[in-house]
């Protein structure tokens, strides 16, 4: 009964949550993963997972405020019903993970401890040391192993997803995968395929992402007709450690526990940072954002680092974006909570961050955009309709996208500790939806369809293996990464973006002349890489072109040329007038750009369109973190421009 099976591609938090939930209800799951699932990129998440809890509730917090923080932090670019559903279910998810044995940090009395993360004023973030992602994924990995022992899950580890199997009506009926040990290509029929394949940071060369985060599965789905949305929204994490092979993350939890960001007031001060007195240190985030301090949303922190380093020339190291992240003044018990991440710094930099302030740099970190995925709004609650087959289904029937691989939840900027939540939530939530879909599918998968798909991918594999041109695929990847990192990260300008699009076009041409340097029949990593390079070029096109077309500033997408000038008059009347003007421009901008970018592959000719965003729960308002004249803008906006909040939303 292959048509009742489900293929889940990706063994990170989302994929595992989905697989275990499906298996628990008796569905047979084929779990496909590039690496043993326990090694998926979710292990790199450090800081924690957000949910409203008893402590924050006592301070006035609610699921609605979690929703509000999330969409405000995301600059209102996300559909709000899924976000509401996620925030509503977040407390239950933390309880579930606790029941599964996740070793969350505890208060002296034995309750789960919480810390504060960026973009909120509440301590919503539960955490397990400084390796929360690792602890969460292990709990799910164990559950999946449990169902594997029961026979409900079949694992395909070290397998690459090559393509979905689509029938003549464009309905997904399985997937073609490749064993990365034997290089054997397999075709698996199924009632539905769930893609939980993560982000695409490797498009930027080095990022905080793992070596497997090429976005290739998404690109392969994209080429098979699945829409890709908001590709240009890539989160740049403000604090990472540069390395020769990757940029290692220094978690936001370092700041959540009281770590402070600063630069010496003298440019490139050559003194030992410990010898620089407080009066000669510029704690720029605390000075510019008194309310949020070091915990402003990531896009803001990154841009301020850029501003301080580039515009003010105060970078700790010339020619790079480098600032100090200082945890040396924290008490040892607090430092202990950060051991996991401080160890990483010490191990890779050879400097003890408990004694010497860390040198940190911004780095590409998370794909807010992803495969377009549908949702079914519950008109009564404002959230989602449970078990509706369309939830998280892409525009291809039977093909689902969840986790970082989809485009929901985070809009233009993701808040820290919301990713673990969105991944587990989507995995758990989508399972009954997928089950409803397969329950309604009775038609068997014809073997001719399965065989044809396998044949096609085998031919493609053979063609790639035979590529013997003069271009080195690694060089092309380096060039791609360099141009993307230079032009499509923190600050984006149309001229540079246009050059980038042209450069990608050039790389696309040169790709045809690539040589695959390995003729081996086992674990041929060259073929795998050459194929992924093709996918990364496709992803780069979507990202760069989307960025070029979006003429505004929104969340992580920052185009200074389209910045609305902040009110700055000293005269109250003029200031007010300026604020009204600002709000008018802002409203006009929102009317035009408060839309998701939708990319369609269309046989290689990528086409872009825009989709309205459901903002019915929290009316959009200007995001004024630290903006000059924020107060007057907010006042004017409330009086003259704001839509009414829907009844019952508070």
């Amino acid at each position, binding site marked *: 009964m292959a048509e009742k099976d489900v293929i889940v591609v990706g063994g990170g938090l989302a994929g595992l949550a989905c697989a275990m939930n499906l298996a628990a209800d008796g569905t047979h799951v084929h779990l496909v993963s590039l690496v043993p699932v326990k090694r998926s990129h979710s292990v790199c998440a450090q800081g924690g997972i957000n949910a409203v809890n008893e402590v924050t509730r006592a301070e006035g917090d609610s699921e609605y405020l979690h929703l509000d923080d999330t969409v405000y932090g995301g600059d209102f670019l996300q559909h709000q019903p899924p976000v509401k559903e996620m925030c509503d279910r977040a407390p239950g998810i933390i309880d579930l993970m606790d029941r599964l044995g996740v070793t969350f940090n505890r208060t002296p009395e034995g309750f789960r401890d919480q810390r504060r993360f960026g973009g909120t004023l509440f301590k919503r973030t539960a955490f397990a040391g400084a390796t929360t992602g690792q602890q969460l994924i292990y709990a799910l990995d164990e559950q999946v192993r449990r169902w*594997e*022992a029961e026979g409900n899950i*079949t*694992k*395909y*580890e*070290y*397998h690459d997803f090559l393509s979905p199997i689509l029938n003549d009506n464009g309905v997904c009926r399985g997937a073609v995968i490749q*064993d990365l*040990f034997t290089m054997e290509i397999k075709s698996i029929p199924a009632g539905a395929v769930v893609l939980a394949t993560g982000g695409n940071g490797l498009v930027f060369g080095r990022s905080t992402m793992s070596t497997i985060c090429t976005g290739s599965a998404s690109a392969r789905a994209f080429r098979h007709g699945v829409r890709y949305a908001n590709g240009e929204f890539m989160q740049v994490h403000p604090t990472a450690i540069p390395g020769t092979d990757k940029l290692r993350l220094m978690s936001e939890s370092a700041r959540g526990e009281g770590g402070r960001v600063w630069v010496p007031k003298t440019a490139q001060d050559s003194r030992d940072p410990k010898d620089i007195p407080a009066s000669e240190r510029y704690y720029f985030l605390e000075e510019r954002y008194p309310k949020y301090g070091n915990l402003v949303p990531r896009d803001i922190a990154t841009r301020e680092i850029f501003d301080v380093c580039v515009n003010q020339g105060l970078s700790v190291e010339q020619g790079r974006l480098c600032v100090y992240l200082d945890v040396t003044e924290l008490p040892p018990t607090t430092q202990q909570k950060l051991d996991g991440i401080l160890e990483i710094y010490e191990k890779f930099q050879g400097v003890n961050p408990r004694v010497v302030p860390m040198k940190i740099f911004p780095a590409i970190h998370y794909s807010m955009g992803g495969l377009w995925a549908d949702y079914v709004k519950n008109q009564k609650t404002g959230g989602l309709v449970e078990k509706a087959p369309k939830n998280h289904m892409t525009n291809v029937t039977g093909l689902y996208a969840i986790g970082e691989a989809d485009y929901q939840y985070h809009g233009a900027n993701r808040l820290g500790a919301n990713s673990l939540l969105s991944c587990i939530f989507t995995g758990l939530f989508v399972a009954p939806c997928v089950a409803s879909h397969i329950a309604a599918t009775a038609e068997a998968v014809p073997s001719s369809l399965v065989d044809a798909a396998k044949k096609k991918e085998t031919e493609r594999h053979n063609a790639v293996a035979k590529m013997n041109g003069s271009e080195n695929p690694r060089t092309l990847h380096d060039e791609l990464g360099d141009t993307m990192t230079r032009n499509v990260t923190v600050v984006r300008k149309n001229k540079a973006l246009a050059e980038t699009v042209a450069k990608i076009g050039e790389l696309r041409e040169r790709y045809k002349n690539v040589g695959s340097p390995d003729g081996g029949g086992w674990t041929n990593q060259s073929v795998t890489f050459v194929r992924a390079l093709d996918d990364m070029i496709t992803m780069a096109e979507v990202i760069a072109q989307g960025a070029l077309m979006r003429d505004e500033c929104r969340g992580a997408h920052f185009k200074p040329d389209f910045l609305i000038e902040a009110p700055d008059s000293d005269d109250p009347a003029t200031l007010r007038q300026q604020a009204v003007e600002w709000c008018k421009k802002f409203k006009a901008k929102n009317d035009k750009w408060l839309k998701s970018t939708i990319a369609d592959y269309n046989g290689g000719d990528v086409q872009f369109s825009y989709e309205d965003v459901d903002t019915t729960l929290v009316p959009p308002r200007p995001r004024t973190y630290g903006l000059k004249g924020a107060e007057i803008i907010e006042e004017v906006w409330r009086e003259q421009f704001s839509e009414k909040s829907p009844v019952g939303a508070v």
Partner: protein
Amino acid sequence: MSSQTATTAISPREKYYFLARRLHSLTGLMFSGFVCFHLLINATVLTGGESFQFCVEKIHILEHMGILVPVEMATIFFPIAFHALFGIVILLTSQSNMKDYPYGGNIRYTLQRLSAVVILVFLTMHIWHMHWLGKPFGGAQFDPANATSTAAAAMQSWSLWAPIYAIGVAATVFHLANGIWTALITWGVTIGPRSQRVAGYCCVALGAVLFVAGLGAVRGFMTYSVADGNETAAVEQVEESGH
């Protein structure tokens, strides 16, 4: 690459493996007790042939009661035979990697197995050499009735016996001390690194005492003048005067 099923039906090997390993540990501990006893008694030869003869006769009271052989079999021979045979099984499953990982614990692990082989050879020779079991094979030079002089004569009968016994004692004492240290972990007595370290010191001390006693005994028998004495008569005299 789907995974194979995890478990199959439980075979006898599966079922009794744990028991066998625990018995192996237990028999080791039993034999350790015997070795302590044995070496310390042998060391009494240093204080004169009579004291050793006296001890041997005390033990051989069991013989007069007719239970020496059963007791010896039950508490010494069968345990050590099991320990040795199952030890060979364990030995065959190990793969020393001391060269790559020259850590203290790993070196001791390897030495434990090496010493086991040495002991196996030594013990065979020793039994042939001294014990009545060696009689059919032309050994068994030790006579409890004239314990000190026959033992000394046996030791002095070949120039290599002294070094062989010295090596045998060294191997035995190491195996015993390290065996007790690992047994404490195996049975879950010493759990943390600190308690294991302290247990280690204790085992070193025990080993040192036994090693000195063992070498002392070898020296005692080597230097005992066989022609000198009738230690049995001496003991009888002592006993009579005692009454």
